């Protein structure tokens, strides 16, 4: 005999498979939903279903979208001579928020990480190269994260793109806004010094 009803146990199980959620949090969420109005629980269920059923990868840039090509790839107003390469769809959002960038994107869906078994074949790299050969691109902006995995990915890409004769740029690295000089590490500071600007 089990102390807990089958559907409850099942939901707890499903929740605890999510990243960052342990068995306690999973039970808490489950019992919250159990007591919440029916509409709220069903809205969550619908949202989950739509998440899986109504999203696809954009066939061009591999961002998550409802229709392929995605709105950015379809937008006639965007600068087609530059492609910004990012690790994750969330990075596209971050760059879009700046309203500074008007070009196109390419989402790799990860970064090279040999120890986790993520190599070039696990990322959308072949697709990027095909794009660069087919589209009128002049510049590739490598906007992978400024950590070791991101740098390794950027170096790897730069070497692959070099024979195509395109301009390859990297997002600047340096001190963060709101940061503190005395806490900066030497790699960041060195790069900030190298990239100093006239005032």
């Amino acid at each position, binding site marked *: 005999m089990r102390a807990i009803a089958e559907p409850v146990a099942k939901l707890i199980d499903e929740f605890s498979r999510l990243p*960052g959620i342990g068995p306690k949090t999973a039970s808490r969420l489950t019992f919250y939903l159990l007591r919440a109005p029916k509409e709220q629980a069903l809205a969550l269920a619908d949202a989950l279903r739509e998440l899986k059923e109504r999203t696809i990868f954009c066939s061009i840039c591999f961002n998550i979208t409802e229709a392929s090509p995605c709105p950015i790839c379809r937008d006639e107003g965007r600068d087609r001579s530059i492609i910004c390469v990012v690790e994750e769809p969330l990075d596209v959002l971050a760059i879009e928020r700046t309203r500074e960038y008007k070009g196109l994107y390419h989402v790799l869906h990860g970064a*090279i990480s*040999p*120890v*986790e*078994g993520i*190599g*070039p074949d696990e990322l959308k790299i072949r697709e990027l190269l095909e794009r660069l050969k087919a589209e009128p691109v002049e510049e590739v902006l490598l906007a992978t994260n400024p*950590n*070791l995995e991101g*740098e*390794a990915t950027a*170096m*790897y890409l730069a*070497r692959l793109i070099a024979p195509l004769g395109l301009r390859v740029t990297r997002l600047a690295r340096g001190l*963060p*806004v*709101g*940061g*503190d000089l005395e*806490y*900066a*590490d*030497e*790699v*960041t500071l*060195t790069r900030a010094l190298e990239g100093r600007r006239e005032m």
Partner: protein
Amino acid sequence: MGRERLYRTEAIVLKRSDFGEADRLLTLYTPEWGKLRVIAKGVRKPASRKSGHLELFTHSRLLVAKGRNLDIVTQAETIHSFRPLREDLLRTGWAYYAAELLDRFVGEGVENRLLFNLLLAMLGWLCEDVDLDLTARFYELRLLALVGYRPQLFHCLACRAEIEPGATPFFSPASGGLLCPRCGEGQRDAREISMPALKVLRFMQTNRYELCRRLRIGRSLHAELEETMRRYITYILERNLKSVEFLQRLQREMSE
């Protein structure tokens, strides 16, 4: 060996993974506590004061607070960032290999100061040296010796006879080193090892790195050395190292 509530340690970051909203789970190698898993809070935010000091393969000075489960890094300061490892893809690949190899061979919380010193030296060599395959072989031999798997390169492990130049001996991972031509014949995992390869391995096992780095080794001999060590290491670990695949791919693509 109780650690205090707040303790200081040097550390090299071997591995890390994202954790929670903006935290990271780090696997460190330290002189006092060996392999140590800790949490670094908030290091994925751009303005984090610690993130740059907790990059992979950085040698740092840390202040760590004992946590209920995992300990928490409260302060971090770089001692050496090994910058060339971050600016040359092949060197990056080798650093991944060095860290993964050590990670696989040691359990958590076992002190081995010599191993720490070896890793520290290795990261330095990987920044400067030209023949990184040679550096890797030296590192493998030293690491194996420090964790108790020093391969026997002088005597036959079956009949104890000294191996001398002449007939070709065998290298057998299961036996832990050499077998003489008579004992090794027909052994399933034994492969012949050439005299030049054996000499290089013996030299590296018994000499300091400063001498070993001067060796000049041709391509085919390198291939044999790599194959021999790879077979031995894979036998002990009972698995392939993930970084090897990446390294081999890089080397292949770069030679194209």
